[in-house]
């Protein structure tokens, strides 16, 4: 046993084993009672199921946070104001070009600069929205892959579960099988929230925390992913029921949170910003007159709905003379350019100025990642503590095993001496009676 413990010192999930020694039944000889030695009642794998559960729970939280943070960090790179990335620069550049136009409203270069800045602005919106959509699709792919990993683990888990049940007769040692099962449960915890129910005979029933079955006895219940009819994104099903909203932790939950909540919320904010800004600019543009004295038309292709505006926003005109800087129809008038410029300080986007609204979005993105990172740090410490406690119970201590080896060796030597003494006595007795 000591040698098995030593051999498995570095085996992941291994729990040290100890022999459950009991005194052998005594023998009565007349008025005397004699001991008959020792016997191994059973071999016990030392583990604390409460600690195992706690480790699995912390692992679930870490799995969720890691998945969310991985995507969140990619999002915050898109809007990293500290490196100049994001929409502040193109929004500011657009209004700056309008500011220059108001100084020289008839200057073709100033007009072309406004068109170029508007084009850059739409490109920035399109790219930000496109990058978010790509990240959402990648995360959607990860959801399917995670479901496949869960199914692979539950299949293995069901097989091991069956072996545990089959070998659970009294006196049999299922320690290594339970270790293996625990290791699979821990891997599964990293992927999805699970709940374990002891079903007797050593069997374990595993469900999601909302009750969707994953493993019952020797049978595993595969999760499936099917495209949502509205969004096209993969929903997670168990036995024909959509359980996507009920998945509450583990990597799968982090991916779903990122895909279904975080990215759509940011995408919606971008759409609102693009829609309100474009609509307000168009309204002012249409109130003015262009360089030829004609009524101004929209600068941006008028968005029809908020949703999707950031992805499709485009400049409607290519001729710089179509920019309506004037109100009186004359080329030197800048009244409409001034009105366009004033938009940057007006509450035109959901009750805020365009850049205040955008700053709020930047804060949300950073704060969501920051909060997740803080939880990850706290959870990581809690997981390390639980794993340490678990190691204290189940971990193999080489010194302890060495001491045990010496102790057992000494006991063996003593027993051998007793046997030799008995053998000598017996020989003496036999030879004494020999004629």
């Amino acid at each position, binding site marked *: 046993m000591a040698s098995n413990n030593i051999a498995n010192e570095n085996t992941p999930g291994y729990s040290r084993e100890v022999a459950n020694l009991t005194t052998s039944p005594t023998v009565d000889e007349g008025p005397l009672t004699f001991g008959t030695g020792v016997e191994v009642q059973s071999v016990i794998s030392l583990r604390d199921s409460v600690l195992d559960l706690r480790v699995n729970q912390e692992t679930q939280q870490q799995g969720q946070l890691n998945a969310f943070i991985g995507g969140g960090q990619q999002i915050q*790179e898109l809007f990293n104001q*500290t490196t100049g990335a994001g929409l502040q620069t193109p929004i*500011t550049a657009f209004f700056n070009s309008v500011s220059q136009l108001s100084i020289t409203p008839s200057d073709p270069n100033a007009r072309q600069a406004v068109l170029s800045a508007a084009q850059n602005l739409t490109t920035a919106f399109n790219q930000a929205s496109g990058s978010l959509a790509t990240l959402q699709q990648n995360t959607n792919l990860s959801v399917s892959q995670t479901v496949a990993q869960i199914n692979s683990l539950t299949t293995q888990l069901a097989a091991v579960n069956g072996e545990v049940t089959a070998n659970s007769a009294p006196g049999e040692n299922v320690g290594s099988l339970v270790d293996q099962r625990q290791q699979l449960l821990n891997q599964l915890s990293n992927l999805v929230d699970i709940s374990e129910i002891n079903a007797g005979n050593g069997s374990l029933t595993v469900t999601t925390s909302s009750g969707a079955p994953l493993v019952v006895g020797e049978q595993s219940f595969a999760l499936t992913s099917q495209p949502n009819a509205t969004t096209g994104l993969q929903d997670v099903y168990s036995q024909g029921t959509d359980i996507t909203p009920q998945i509450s932790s583990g990597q799968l939950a982090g991916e779903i949170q990122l895909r279904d909540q975080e990215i759509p919320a940011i995408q919606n904010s971008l759409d609102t910003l693009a829609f309100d800004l474009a609509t307000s600019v168009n309204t002012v543009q249409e109130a003015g007159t262009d360089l030829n004295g004609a009524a101004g038309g929209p600068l941006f292709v008028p968005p029809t709905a908020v949703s999707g505006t950031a992805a499709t926003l485009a400049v409607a005109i290519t001729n710089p003379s179509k920019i309506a800087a*004037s109100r*009186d129809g004359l080329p030197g*008038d800048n009244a409409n350019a001034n009105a366009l410029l004033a938009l940057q300080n007006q509450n035109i986007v959901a009750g805020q100025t365009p850049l205040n609204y955008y*700053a709020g979005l*930047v804060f949300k993105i950073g704060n969501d990642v920051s909060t997740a990172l803080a939880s990850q740090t706290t959870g990581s410490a809690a997981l390390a503590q639980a794993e340490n406690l678990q190691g204290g119970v189940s971990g193999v201590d080489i010194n302890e095993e060495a001491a045990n080896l010496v102790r057992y060796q000494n006991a063996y030597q003593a027993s051998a001496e007793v046997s030799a003494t008995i053998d000598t006595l017996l020989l003496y007795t036999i030879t004494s009676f020999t004629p």
Partner: protein
Amino acid sequence: MSIRLNPDLLPSLLADIQLSLKNETTASEQLATGQAVNQLSDNPGAAASLVGNANQSSADDQYQQSDATLQGKFQVADATLGSVVTALNAAISLGTEGASGTVNAADRTAIAAQVQGLITQTLGLSNTTYQGAYLFSGTAVNTQPFVQNAATGAVTYAGNAGATTVAISNGDNVGANLPGSQLFQNAAGSVFGALQDLNTSLLSGTGIGAAVTELQTALTQVSTNRVFYDNGLSQLTSAGNYLNQDKLDLSTQVNSLVGADPVAAASNFSESQIEEQSLLAATSKVLSLPTLFTYLPA
């Protein structure tokens, strides 16, 4: 009985080494970029404030550029009106000379020719352009504002009375032009009217004194309106000073929002390095620690 400790120290040590490396990377990044905030999550509030700061700083740059353009325009307009004042003073001198009893009709005709030259000069000044746009045509900047009738010599205004304003800093606007009608054909004193009246009176020999008085009124009017550009230039200078100070303040604000404390960053870097080395040494010791087997007889 004491609690059994986890005999495997390596996972904790490796996690600590990772943390130490992370701290080292953070300090190194802060030293390299000079910023304590390199990701939005480092300080979401500061990153959000940076949006407004960067916008204002960029807008200030634009205002400075716009103000330079405007300053050039105002200087040309002011210099042009200065030339008009000079021309009007010359015309007043000529009128005074023509009004004296020592000149005869031929002399007055000669003086009238000089006045005609001044009219032509002033007409040219009133049609001055800046960067391809007429300065004194109101908002009709592509239309020549003053045209002289070849037959009658009368000057008519083809521009409009449009006046524009532009923003020269955040929340501060300045008038960008005065229409030519207000400058050269003001009801309170018309420049062209006065010059033509002088020309006519010199040729006829009557009413020269009144024409000179008319010129003086026009001169006063031009000088009064010229103050518009002087004030504009003064306002632009003030705006320039404000913008310079604002950019300095914004730069300071950026530093306080996201700037790294180089001393603290260097100290953190050094501490992290020492910590990492200590952890590596400890890990090495743990890996080579003797066990009970080491001391047992073979």
